Structures are given as C-alpha cells and as structure tokens.
C-alpha cells in the first residue's frame, strides 16, 4: 500500500516535470482571453516619466508644430498603437499641427491607421482637419540616423516630397519649416533601431530640440537615463505606459483595458515556475533518500 502510494506520487511529480507544453499554452491562452471579457478597469495613475510626455504636449500653445516620427512596424502594434492614437487625440484636441514621418518603412502607415481610428471620434471629426494644413505625412526615407542628422540642416534634403509625392513647398503646413528650429517638439514612437536612442543622440544632443517618446516595454528602461538627464521629456513604456497616458488625457482606451489580462498572465507564468521547482525538488529529495 505504502509502496504503491509513493510509486504513484513519484510518477505524478515526474509527469509534472515533463508536462506537455500544450497544457501550458492552454493556461496562457485562458489567462489572457478570459479577463478580456471582464471589463475590469484598473486605475492606472501616470508615473512621472509618463507625466513628462503628457506635460510636454499639454503645455504647447495651439498652432505649435510637432514632428511625430513613427519608427515601428506592425509587430509592435499592441504596445505602440495605443500611444499613437492617444497622441493624435491629445494633439488635435490642443489644435497642434502634426508632421508625420518614419524611419521604418511601415511607420508612416501605422500613423495612417491611427489617424483613421482617431478621426472616428466626434470631437475630432468636428474640427474638420485638413491634410496639408493640420497634418502632413512625409512618409519613409531610408538611411536611419543619417536621416535625423540631415534633417537638422534641412527637412527638404531628406524629404523633398511628402508620402504622396507632393513637393514640401506646396504644403501650407510646411511653409517656414526648414529644420528642427521650426518645430516645437518631436514625438517619437520606437520599437528598436533606429529609434529614440538615435533621436536623442542625433537630434537632441546636436540640435537641442525637445523630445518626448513612447517605447516598447523591452526598450523603455534603456531610455530612463535620458529622462534623468533631461535629454528626453518623458517616455511611455510598453502597454502600461500607454495605459497611463490614456488615463492622463482622460480617454481610457485599449491599453487600459488590456492591463488586467497582462497581470493575470504574469501570475500564471510565475505559478508554473513555482510548480516546476516544487516538482524538481521533491524528485531530488526522493532520489537522495
């Protein structure tokens, strides 16, 4: 009886150690899917790094020009797209003019997708924003940080035409915009290289322009030192940063809704790690005795 019991127990721990990974997959899927259906709205107050981004935009007088560089691709959409939408909402409500560009081929397209979403808002629809007057999309240019450097001397050198092939000189918004001296803020959404680090090194450090950024959670910690030194007004880090920003502009969106799933999923992974170690140690103890 006793022996049988221990036999069974042993096989239980062993089974646990070599658990089919599909069971883990199932738990993860459930941990993320189920909370999506419960509209738990966690209160997510803005941390100082996020507040820095919010203030940088909030404090601009109406009519100020913001250069928004979209340096990411669809892969980082869940993290960065909420930041893009929240930014447009914030900027258009404050009547800022937005110059869109991208150092990643798909970046300007992500901007278009965010615009499409934001234009559905009633208050923004009512403003009847015009391409060329209220916002322009310069498109993508290859060359990474070299583009940033060249733009310090002249935007036109890197972007003779906008994304649709219209010469910059024919766009009312671009009148009088020669280089960074003529924009009031750069807002950069970045998922890697080239990205915020390059904007700091080649635009902020050289041309002394103000920069606020949103980054993937993977990248954000590397940007904190720049915030401390003031090279960066603030940084939105990952989905949590997006959620904080959404809360700050008073329009909680997708990021806020997602935070609950996020927390549960982390807990599930930790749970499995604990189980794995329990199994590992009980087997080890058994072997020793």
């Amino acid at each position, binding site marked *: 009886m006793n022996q049988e019991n221990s036999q069974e127990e042993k096989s239980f721990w062993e089974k646990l150690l070599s*658990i089919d*990974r599909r069971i*883990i*997959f199932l*738990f*993860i*899927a459930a941990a*993320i899917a189920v909370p999506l259906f419960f509209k738990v709205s*966690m209160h997510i107050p803005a941390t100082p790094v996020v507040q820095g981004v919010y203030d940088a935009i909030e404090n601009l007088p109406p009519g100020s020009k913001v250069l928004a560089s979209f340096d990411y691709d*669809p*892969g980082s*959409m*869940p993290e960065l797209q909420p930041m893009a939408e929240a930014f447009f909402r914030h900027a258009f409500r404050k009547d800022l003019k937005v110059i869109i560009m991208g150092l990643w*081929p*798909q970046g*300007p*397209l992500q901007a*278009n*997708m965010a615009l*499409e979403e934001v234009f559905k808002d009633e208050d923004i629809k009512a403003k009847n924003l015009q391409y060329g007057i209220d916002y322009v999309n310069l*498109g993508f240019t*290859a*060359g990474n940080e*070299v583009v940033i450097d060249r733009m310090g001397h002249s935007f036109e050198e890197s972007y003779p035409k906008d*994304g*649709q*092939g219209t010469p910059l000189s024919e766009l009312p918004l671009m009148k009088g915009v020669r280089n960074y001296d003529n924009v009031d803020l750069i807002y950069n959404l970045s998922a890697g290289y080239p990205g915020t680090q390059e904007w700091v090194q080649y635009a902020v450090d050289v041309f002394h322009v103000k920069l606020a950024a949103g980054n993937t*959670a993977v990248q954000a*910690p590397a940007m904190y030192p720049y915030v401390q030194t003031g090279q960066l007004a603030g940084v939105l880090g990952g989905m*949590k940063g997006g959620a904080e920003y959404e809360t700050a502009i008073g329009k909680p969106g997708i990021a806020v809704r997602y*935070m609950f799933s*996020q*927390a549960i*999923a*982390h*807990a*599930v*992974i*930790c749970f*499995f*790690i604990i189980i*794995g*170690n329990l199994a*590992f*140690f009980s087997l080890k103890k058994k072997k020793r005795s």
Partner: protein
Amino acid sequence: MRREVPLVLTAIVGLTMIIAHFIPPFNILKDLFEDWFFIIAAFAIYLGVLNLLRVNADKVYKKQRDWPFGVVVILGFLVITIPGLFFSGGRSFLDIGTPFYYLYIHVYYPLSATMFALLAFFVASASYRAFRARNVEATLLLVAAFVLMLGRVPIGDWITAWLPEGYRLGNAADWIMDFPQTAGQRAIMIGIALGLVSSALRVILGLERTYMGGD
C-alpha cells in the same frame, strides 16, 4: 583576378571607412557607401526571389512532398507584387485605400502579428523548463526573472503590500534593472566591441576569407 581583387578591395574599402571616421571631409563617404549598399541589396533581392520561385516551381513540377503549398507560395508572391508594383499608385503604394494596403492590413499584418504573438506561449514554456534552481547560476537566473516578472505588473506590489513602501517587488525589479543588470550588460557590450574590432580586422587583413569562395 577572381580572388585577389576582392581581397584587395575589402582591405582598401575597410581601411578607408576606418580612416574616414577621423577625417571630416571624408565623412561623406559613409553616407555614400551606405547608399551603395542599399542599391546592391536592391539588385540582389532579384536573386533571392528568383531562387524562391524556382525552388517552389521545382517542388510543384516534380510533385514533391507538400507540393500544393509550393503553389501557395508562388501565388502569394504574385498576389501582392502585381498590385504593389502596378496598381497601387506608384510610390504612394502604402496609402490607405490602395490594393497593396488592403493586402498589408488583412493578410500580411495578421500573419506577422500572430507569429510574433506565439512568443507569449514560448516565453511561458521556456521559463517553465529553464527556471529551475539546479545550481547557483540557475537559481540567480530564476530569482532575477521571477522578481522582474511580478515586479512589472501591479500584482507584484500587491503581494508585497505588507512591506514598507520603497522595499516592494516593484522597487526590487527596478533595482535589479538599474544596477546588476546594467553591470552585466556593460561587460557583454564591452566584450562585443572588442570581439567585433578583432573580427573586422581579420576580415580587412584577409585572414578570414571563407566567404569569398574559391577559384
């Protein structure tokens, strides 16, 4: 000719790039050579694409295993290239409303994002397997990962709410990122700098030349 010219060319170009970094009037070479690289790569992509199409056409023609999927590869390629090159408004091919944009949003993007999302599952299975306290190193790996995972979401602070503020899991996570993590990262980065420098020199000096092929 076949072998010597490329080796000499590598050496000259490599040394020029290094020297140009220190001589301002030559800085422009950096931009120029990078542009040339893009041009060479833009030509080379024809080689890759032709290879892809040939391999799959072969597969279909010879009725190899899974040959129907060879048809899918070829069709997939054509379905996006033809509209992208000819029917999507030229350079503004990525604008909202073009056929290329439609394919991008409804075919390319879901595939790409889902593939990326598989990582959520693999992160879980890899951590289950790898994070076991087998020895000192594995234990440190486990503890650091654990603290960071919980410390990054509200749960971490919630579990450790009984601790005084400033000593909770979130703070511990930040501390690990700021100090030991920075140190480890620095050591790796400095090592990489030296490894790369030495590797680049071997290439420039022609000691490492397997990539250049034979006669």
